Structures are given as structure tokens and as C-alpha cells.
């Protein structure tokens, strides 16, 4: 530590503030709660969650609850993703009229070694997210981009954007 470059406290503060307010995405890891099994068939579509569905993405190291465990759930770490992108991964699937078509738009392919191998999933390169809208495979980053709401100036009236 003696040879470590000295950085003044104000410089650290400036760096932190600049990082926080730069608006740039910060790549990180997230522990994502994934359904390990389908919900019972008695749950009617379109509300029935299926195996692989991404239920929640929380910061790395998140301690999940006592009922957020196997056999219903698994935790998969997805890295190289911004916090905002991680939140979009758990969006519901809807049609153009806003009607729910699936409780979770994205699911992980639990049979893919990149998911089941026990190592973190690279959010930028591993195309392991299944989009329930069109059944396509996407990386987590691509999935987040697809789920991002489209900017719509007509939404700026109470009845607009609908």
C-alpha cells in the first residue's frame, strides 16, 4: 500500500459523483430469481408462469427469502449488465393494446449449459433469454433493449399513448 498512488478524498468524491450522474450504464452483476418449474396447470393463461421465467433481478449477493428457493426457484447470476437493463428483464409481456399475454416476458433457457453450468451468464454475449413475445433468443442486453418502452410524445396526455 505504501506505493499505491495517493488519491485525495475530494478527487474520489468528484469521481463518484461523476459516475453517479453521468447517465452512463454501469455494468454489474445481478442475482436473478428464475422459476425452476411451471406453475400448476390450474393457473390460467395468460397469468401462468413457466419454468425459466425471470421473476426478479436483484443486486449481486442478494439474500432471497425463505420461500424463494428450490424446488420452485433457482438463482442465476447475470453479469455485464446495467441496473436499468436488469430491471427490464422482468417486465411482463403485453400486446399492443396493453393486455397481458404472459406474466414474464423473458425466460432463461434452463437447458443451456451457459445457464446451468454454474458460472455467471454474460449479459452481452450469451443468447440464453427466450422472448415469450416471438420465441426468439436474445442476450440479456438485447432483451432489455426490446423491453424498453418506446418513447411516445402522444403519451404525454392522460389518455395518450394508449
Amino acid at each position, binding site marked *: 500500500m505504501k506505493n499505491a498512488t495517493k488519491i485525495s478524498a475530494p478527487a474520489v468524491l468528484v469521481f463518484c459523483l461523476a459516475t453517479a450522474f453521468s447517465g452512463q450504464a454501469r455494468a454489474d452483476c445481478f442475482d436473478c430469481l428464475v422459476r425452476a418449474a411451471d406453475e400448476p396447470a390450474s393457473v390460467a393463461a395468460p397469468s401462468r408462469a413457466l419454468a425459466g421465467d425471470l421473476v426478479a433481478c436483484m443486486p449481486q449477493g442478494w439474500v432471497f427469502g425463505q420461500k424463494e428457493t428450490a424446488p420452485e426457484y433457482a438463482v442465476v447470476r447475470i453479469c455485464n449488465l446495467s441496473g436499468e437493463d436488469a430491471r427490464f428483464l422482468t417486465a411482463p409481456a403485453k400486446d399492443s393494446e396493453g393486455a*397481458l399475454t404472459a406474466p414474464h416476458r423473458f425466460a432463461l433457457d434452463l437447458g443451456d449449459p451457459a445457464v446451468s453450468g454454474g458460472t455467471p451468464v454474460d449479459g452481452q454475449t450469451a443468447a440464453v433469454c427466450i422472448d415469450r413475445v416471438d420465441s426468439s433468443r436474445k442476450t440479456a442486453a438485447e432483451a432489455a433493449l426490446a423491453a424498453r418502452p418506446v418513447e411516445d410524445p402522444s403519451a404525454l396526455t392522460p389518455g395518450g399513448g394508449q
Partner: protein
Amino acid sequence: MKRLAALVLALVALLPAPLLADSARKMPLSYNVATFGGPGRDYTTLQAWEDATDNDLVAAGKGEVLLCYPDSAAYAQRVTISGAVTNASYFRVIRAAPGFERQVVLDYNGVLGSYDGTVLVTNENHVGLYDLSIRHHISTSASVNTKDIFIQGNTAGACRVVGCRLGPSVNTGSDMASAGQVYGDGRLVVADSVVAAYPEGYGIIQNNGQLYVLSSVFYGVNQTALYSQAATSIAVNCVLQGNGANFYGAAWLITTCKTDGTVSFVNAAAGDFHLSDTDASAKDHGTDLSSDAIFPFSDDMDGDLRPQGAAWDIGADEWKPGTAGMVTIPLF
């Protein structure tokens, strides 16, 4: 002693039922309870509880209640509530655990689409949200219409927001961040709640369906506090103060609401919307809703019985002398 006990029991049985007032926080006749919060609770994510309770509650004869504790690390959460089979007796409730009213903050940090909210209820009836703080905040510029609560398609039974604090909305760059929207034949009752500090958006918007707003406060809403585009909406005992506009739409039925800026709160700037000791505008000027045809109730946002004085007070709080204020949540 046995004879005395039997006599007391017989007398109690003969007493009229209205001795027990209706709470605005309607609960299922019978229900399972799970907990939400930090490590050690059943759930740390709202959506996992929602998924786990997507059942036929009517057939099971059990509602589902999530008791929320404010011990979770702060992080963005949202939830889509949809899919359980419910009726007026068996339904789902998310509520603060006793003693933690409005201390559990459901806050989504991100851009939501037009049909979405921090809490989205779609095609499910009778959902109850009690004593929570619900908000969202946005830090990126986006022309999207985003809300704390979005209700749609629950045509057979209104969702109920009771004792809740909606807002403050923290949005930078987005032009319309609002407290709530009722859409697609949705039904919503808002009671004993505070909607405050929306520097860009609206309070609650009704495009169609029904909106029933009782004993609530709308304060500091930049645009219109209560906006109704379609069917008749009802507002009773509400305070609307410091808003860009209070009502929009010709179909409002308004009863004993205060819109003249004269209601005095303990400390509105700090988020305390209890009536001040000196208030003379709202106290004892409200309408008795204990026998209301649609949503009868007799308590306020703190669970205190109404009335405390000669008549009901207007707003979310029923003033009691010498009581401590509700938990104050800083506006920003």
C-alpha cells in the same frame, strides 16, 4: 361464575352488530399470510409472492395476504398482479405489517411503459393495497406516461388502495409521472390515502371504468389531481390543495370536498397530512360514509375510528386531540 359468564355472553350476543365498525381495509374471510422484507422473511421480491399465490382462492376458501416489513435493502421493485381467481370474500392483499404503516416503500426506479406501474393490477378483482408507500422515480429523459399504480380490466370487483401514501414522484426529464391510472374498464377505490408531490404529472387518471375517491388528500400535483375522461367518478370528503388543477371532466360527483386551500395540516411540506389542531375547515365537515352503498367504512388512515367529533372530518385523517402524527416521509 359459570352462570354469570353465560349471562354476559348472552348479552354480548344480543348487542347490535354495528358496534364493530367497518374497516376500510377489507380482508378476506379466511386467508394465508406470508411476509415480505429482508433476509429471514418469506419473500424479498413481490413478484415471487404474486406468482406463488396465483391460485383459485375461491375454490380454496382462502385469500392471500402479504405482510410487508420495512427491513429490506432499498431496491427497485415492481409487481404485476394478475391471475388469481377471486371474489368479494377471497382475494389478495398487500399491506404493511402492523406498526409499519406507510414505512414500506415500493419504489420502482426506471422507465415504465404506458400500461404499467410500480403496481400493475390487470384482470384481477378485489386486490387490496393497504398502508403502503408506493412511488416510482425516473432519472432518464423519456416521453412515456408512467404511474405508481395502473389498474385495468378488473370489471367484477374494485381494487382498493387504503391508507396509502402515493408519491413523491421523482422524475427528471419525463413529462408525465402520475400517481395512478384506471384503464380498460378498471375499478378502483382510493380511501384514507394521500397523493402528494407530483412535480410533473397528474394525480389519478380515469380513462374508463370507475374511480371512487373517498376521504383522501391530493396535494402538490402539478397538473390535474383527479382527471376523469369517461364514466361518472365520485369524490367524497377529499382535500385538494396546491394542485395545478383539482378536477377535470364533467362527470364528477363531488360531495363535501375542500378545494379552497383552507385546510390546515400539521406539516404538509414535510409530508404530514394530519389535520392540525387549529384547522377549522375540514374538522366535522365531512359526510358519514359508514353506510355508504359502495364502500362503507368507519376508520381513517391511522385506523382511528370516525367520527371523533360531531361529524366526520374531511381528508385522510380523523383529528384526535393530543395524538402523535403519522410517520412523516420526507417529500424528497
